[in-house]
């Protein structure tokens, strides 16, 4: 037999449940602009109908409904899109950072422009040309000196600026490492909370959101794979479980530790504690020597060579990594290597040629063989030529010491003149310059015991100018200083362009995945408003239902048995 108040209970349940839904709507609206928030829906379920199925159930007609209840509050989210999104985020993290590193380098090298190294080399060349046409002129000489200083300083500037940025990357790597470790700790914490609450039948929607937010951030830094682990116990079907996060390489395969097992950064089963990243720098030279994941059980695996893609990889690549100073690779170390090689080869060739020329006469009217034009004495022990190169102190001391002239051929004893010519015209091998120097320092070769030279002879200045068009051999390749530098800039520009293009394409892919993800999970205010109206009406209707029952009861209680009164 039905209770008299059955309908009241049904209406009360309806009001409660509609209110529950209205609260959820309010929660949705409140979080409409929360990053990473997933809209929630109340799953309405009917309560058990009357009579319930059973042996002793009364035989009454029909199956009377008893109202509604809120079954669960569920996140509306598509996990497949998360996987896609994290994949793209990972690429964005890598290419964006790489692009940034290369763009900064591009800014420093600043080519083509009126300020770059190539312009300085061109200007130095014009100064030497002027000197060759006007070799006794102090003005032409001082321009050569200033332009030589400018070339040296440009090398110094490029080296210092690049090194400065490179050093910034060391700090950034350290900060990002701490960020990864902190993300892993947070994920572990969230996992623990989920593992503790889900067995009691709870659905921890806000924790799942937090979990997804953390995973999104982590995937930006390193490449990861996520697996859900269902909790044991009395779990709600809407429960999503804790996560196990695995490190994966570029091929999408899990990175393995020494035991051949995949490296679990966070373990959803709670078997071992979270992993942490460690990093080792070479203290003097600037490069990373080790990037180690230490798992919860204490096993450490160096993943420097199988570095998973992401922002971290781009940072380490920009900063440079390797096992010894000789085999360091990286965006910045490579460019510094090129600059060092260019500075050294160029300065050495200039010095060689300068040493076979002759200076202006000193106060005693004596000319001297040229010394060095550039000073490379600071090179060595991790200090490259681009940093160490400067103008030689003798040139700094006196303009006369610029060796613009060749030896006066008439001061050579007549039998040796052809020998000298042959030496000068010989192919430029390693011996070339020292052969000429040997000849010039042998006093018996000269009528007056020492070579002489004329102030108006600018042939050695011309030879110095010709270095611009001389094929030199650099660390990676050979070419003239200009063409080699053009190649270096070209390589850098192509890498930057590639990084920029990859960044843009991964960004737009990320955008489109994000769009689809939001399309599923984002709060639509219009929708929430509509539903609010819907729930409100249902709530009102349920209230009306109570009024109706009230009127019915009023009839039964107050209006019955008062016949005719």
């Amino acid at each position, binding site marked *: 037999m039905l209770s008299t108040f059955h309908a009241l209970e049904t209406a009360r349940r309806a009001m409660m449940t509609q209110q529950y839904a209205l609260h959820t709507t309010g929660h949705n609206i409140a979080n*409409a*602009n929360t990053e990473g928030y997933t809209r929630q829906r109340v799953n309405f379920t009917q309560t058990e109908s009357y009579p319930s199925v059973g042996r002793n159930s009364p035989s009454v007609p029909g199956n009377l409904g008893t109202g509604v209840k809120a079954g669960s509050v569920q996140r509306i989210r598509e996990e497949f899109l998360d996987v896609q999104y994290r994949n793209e985020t990972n690429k964005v993290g890598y290419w964006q950072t790489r692009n940034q590193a*290369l*763009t900064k380098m*591009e*800014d420093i090298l600043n*080519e*083509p422009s009126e300020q770059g190294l*190539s*312009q300085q080399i*061109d*200007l130095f*060349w*014009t100064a030497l*040309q*002027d000197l*060759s*046409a*006007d070799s*006794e*002129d102090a003005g032409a000489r001082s321009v050569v000196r200033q332009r030589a200083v400018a070339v040296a300083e440009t090398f110094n500037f490029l080296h210092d600026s690049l090194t400065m940025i490179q050093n910034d990357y060391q700090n950034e790597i350290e900060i990002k490492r701490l960020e990864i470790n902190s993300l892993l700790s947070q994920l572990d914490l969230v996992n623990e909370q989920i593992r503790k609450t889900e067995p009691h039948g709870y659905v921890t929607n806000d924790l799942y959101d937090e979990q997804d937010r953390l995973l999104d951030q982590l995937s930006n830094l390193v490449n990861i794979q996520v697996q859900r682990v269902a909790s044991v116990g009395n779990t709600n079907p809407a429960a999503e479980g804790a996560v196990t996060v695995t490190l994966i390489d570029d091929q999408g395969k899990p990175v393995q530790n020494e035991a051949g097992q995949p490296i679990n950064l966070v373990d959803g089963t709670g078997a071992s504690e979270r992993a942490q990243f460690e990093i080792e720098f070479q203290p003097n030279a600037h490069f990373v020597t080790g990037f180690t994941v230490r798992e919860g059980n204490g096993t450490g695996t160096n993943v420097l060579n199988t570095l998973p893609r992401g922002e971290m990889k781009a940072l380490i690549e920009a900063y440079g990594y390797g096992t010894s100073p000789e085999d360091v690779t990286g965006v910045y170390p490579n460019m510094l290597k090129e600059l060092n090689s260019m500075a050294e080869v160029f300065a050495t060739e200039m010095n060689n040629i300068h040493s076979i020329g002759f200076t202006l006469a000193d106060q005693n009217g004596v000319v001297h063989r040229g010394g060095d034009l550039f000073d490379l004495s600071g090179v060595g022990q991790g200090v490259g030529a681009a940093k160490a190169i400067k103008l030689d102190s003798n040139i700094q001391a006196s303009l006369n010491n610029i060796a613009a*002239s060749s030896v*006066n*051929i*008439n001061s050579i004893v007549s039998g040796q003149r052809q020998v000298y010519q042959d030496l000068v015209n010989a192919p430029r091998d390693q011996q070339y310059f020292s052969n000429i120097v040997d000849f010039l320092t042998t006093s018996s070769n000269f009528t007056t015991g020492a070579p002489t030279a*004329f*102030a*108006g*002879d*600018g*042939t050695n200045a*011309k030879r110095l*100018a010709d270095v611009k*068009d001389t094929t030199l051999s650099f660390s990676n390749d050979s070419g003239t200083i*200009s*063409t080699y*530098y*053009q*190649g270096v*800039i*070209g390589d*850098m*520009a*192509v890498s*930057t*362009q590639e990084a920029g293009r990859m960044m843009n394409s991964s960004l737009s892919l990320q*955008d489109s995945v994000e*769009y*689809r993800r*939001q*399309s599923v999970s*984002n*709060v*639509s*205010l*219009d*929708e929430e*408003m*509509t539903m609010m*109206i819907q729930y409100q009406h249902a709530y009102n209707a349920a209230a009306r239902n109570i009024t109706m029952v009230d009127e019915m009861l009023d009839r039964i209680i107050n209006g019955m048995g008062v016949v005719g009164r």
Partner: protein
Amino acid sequence: MRVTQMMLSQSSLRNLNQGYNRLAQIQDQLATGKKITRASQDPVVAMKGMRYRSQVTEVEQFKRNLSEAYNWMDTADAALDQATQVLQRMRELTTQAANDTNNAEDRANIAKEVKQLREHLESLGNTKNSNKYIFNGTDTTTAPIKNTNNMDLGVTALLNETTTDFSSIEVIYNGKTFQHVGTENGSHIFQDKSQTSPEYGSDAFASEATRLTISPSGAVTFQARNQDYNANDPTSQQQLTNSVSQRDVIVANANTVSINTQAVEVELLKGVTVPININAGDVFSTELFGDIIRLERALEDPKMKGTDLTSYIDNLFGHINTFVAERAELGARVNRVQMIENRLLEQEVNANRIMSENEDADLEKVIIDLMTQETVHRAALSSGARIIQPTLMDFLR
């Protein structure tokens, strides 16, 4: 597909951002006039840009070198022109003096003018261009004609017991320079400098060498091969011998006029060097000054007859010819430099055009891009403003 407010505002923000990016790029192009502002925007343009800029710098430098070359050659040409006029004036004066109506005093006055003209020639030989002696090869800091006192040491200098270094002494006679080759019985033998064979001491020397002999008493004998010598004619002499007056030979220090013969070269095109100086030894030579001094002495000699001066006039003609020839050679070189200049100017235009084509922005295109982008950007702004503003709440009352 569900689309929410947040999605709308995010995407319109993204679109606006992209619009700004494009506008910034167009602004860069308009402000700098260049297609690219960083190498990565177009690596090929950047690399080529570096090469073309370098080419333009080179052409500009060669133009500077060119003006240096013109400077030298113009100055040299002007100096040679003046020197020729001086010599012509000397010739006129000598022709005038060769007339026997002039008495010794008149000739002495003419000699004075010739002396002045000679000094002018000396200063022409020491012509400077922007602080450089242009007639002294690569030795531009010293004057080619240094100590003019050394031009005429006098025959007695040879006979002086203290003189031992004869290699630094030259004797000038009739347009020729003679150098010391040996001593015989106290007599000094000098051979024509331009004649290298026969060598002193060889059998043919006595019969074939053009030479001067200065005896200890100061008597000068000139000997030269007889051009009309006929071996079959027993009367014809193989050797001509003249006795020369002491005042008609000039004994000079060999270093009086510098003999730096090294060319001053300037690069005018990549790998093309052109010598820009002329060899001073060819024009302002010891012979020239020696011969003029000889002329002066002859004019001062009261015993001189008019007809005797004819050989001096011929002599001057010879020197004028040397100057004219040298100027012609210089003129030819100026022509060559002018041709190089033409090529250089053409190259300059080309290099600048190629550079411009490579890296300069096409303004019309950029401005049209700007207009298009501006329109798109305005549309994005106004559509954003229209879409984001109204919500359902505005209509729910």
